[in-house]
């Protein structure tokens, strides 16, 4: 199987044209990026609001869990029938997938900001929004980004279902390979997807390094090291 997979990767025909690896990767990233962008627009404000006010947490967690339970395949097929269009159907399914982790990360991030720090923020005379943007959000960033990274992992893995409704992306290799039991192709698809996930995750980790305030990172370090 390994030899066949290596051969697959070695075959120049698999690297060019609309069915080639570069094109498929771009398509895949496209679905992921689009779905993620929409999910962020939906999930972040909700997470911030609930985390900041402390109100509606039960609802948010409950709703998050229900949304998580929505089968992506079901959503995609349903929206395909409703919209008679492949791309929006696939993207809706992926958005549904990405919203819960982003929302949970955002909410948990804001919620877990040390109560003393929040208290101090009010105590120095910050108004609600000032407190949110100047204190809660910067401190919550690692967890917000954690949620995003989680979402991206799932998106990359699941964007394969787009192929089921006739779209491209790396799922194409999985579906087509599966239909004719071409194992090399399936494995190649899996390897490419996993590699893409790892690369995107590394990029996000890098982003996290850049945007998370140094003090927050230091504080996390001291907390996790703790007393011996």
């Amino acid at each position, binding site marked *: 199987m390994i030899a066949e997979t290596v051969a697959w990767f070695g075959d120049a025909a698999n690297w060019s044209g609309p069915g080639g690896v570069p094109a498929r990767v771009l398509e895949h990233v496209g679905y992921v990026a689009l779905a993620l962008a929409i999910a962020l627009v939906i999930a972040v404000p909700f997470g911030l609001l609930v985390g900041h006010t402390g109100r509606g947490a039960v609802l948010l967690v409950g709703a998050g869990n229900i949304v998580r339970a929505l089968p992506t395949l079901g959503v995609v097929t349903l929206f395909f029938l409703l919209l008679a269009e492949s791309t929006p159907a696939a993207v809706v399914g992926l958005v549904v997938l990405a919203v819960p982790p982003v929302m949970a990360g955002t909410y948990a991030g804001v919620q877990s900001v040390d109560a003393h720090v929040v208290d101090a923020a009010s105590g120095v005379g910050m108004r609600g929004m000032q407190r949110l943007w100047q204190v809660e959000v910067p401190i919550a960033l690692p967890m917000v980004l954690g949620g995003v990274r989680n979402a991206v992992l799932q998106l990359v893995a699941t964007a394969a279902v787009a192929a089921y409704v006739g779209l491209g992306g790396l799922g194409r290799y999985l579906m087509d390979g599966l239909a004719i039991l071409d194992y090399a192709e399936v494995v190649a*698809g899996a390897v490419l997807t996993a590699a893409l996930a790892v690369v995107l995750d590394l990029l996000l980790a890098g982003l996290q390094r850049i945007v998370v305030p140094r003090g927050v990172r230091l504080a996390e370090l001291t907390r996790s090291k703790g007393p011996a």
Partner: protein
Amino acid sequence: MSLIDELGTYLGSANTRAQLWAALAEHGYLALLPILFGVVLAVGAGWLGQTWPQVRGTLAVVANLVYTIPSLALFVVIPGVIGTTILDSINVVVALSLYTAALLVRPMLDAIAAVPQAVTASATAMGYRPARRYFGVELPLAVPVLAAGVRVAAVSNISLVSVGALIGVGGLGRLFTDGFQREYYAPIVVGVVLTLLLALVVDLLLVLLRRVLTPWQRPAPTRRADEEVAA
């Protein structure tokens, strides 16, 4: 035909209903059995991480890597690795067990590491040997975190099983492929609803189970300083 009528016709067939029950049962089994295996794996990983703290990083990375493999690919590749046949439902069970474990390893390691130093130290000082301490003290204390992880894993497994329909093992996922093939809303809607119901019931059961397993945890409402001020 309105959706209601369509649902009426669809559910009107005794054959359909029998198939639905079978699919639901298969779905439950495919989603929940892996939870069991996944928890066992995660508990093992926690033990490794506790005994050799230096492997914690590696375990976390491996868990993350497993999580990046698309489920569909895993379903298909697993027979090649463990020698099952392609249509075997074991493939789905194995794949989802791996996902569950991957999902649980991280929180498991964190939870074990978060057991207060004072508690582990006093256990050691009372003459607990490492294995007994892990199962008698650290693991029970990690239950709340583990339970939260299991809830997420259970729910996402229930959602993921459907993908198995693409390889002919998918419980309720069949309803989606069927509805899709025939441009037929009824099975898709029924499938989504049944999946959600299953998730809801399982989630509730897990919450109850957690309550039973953690009698020492009284719910303590978290309070924020500024709730006082209407400003």
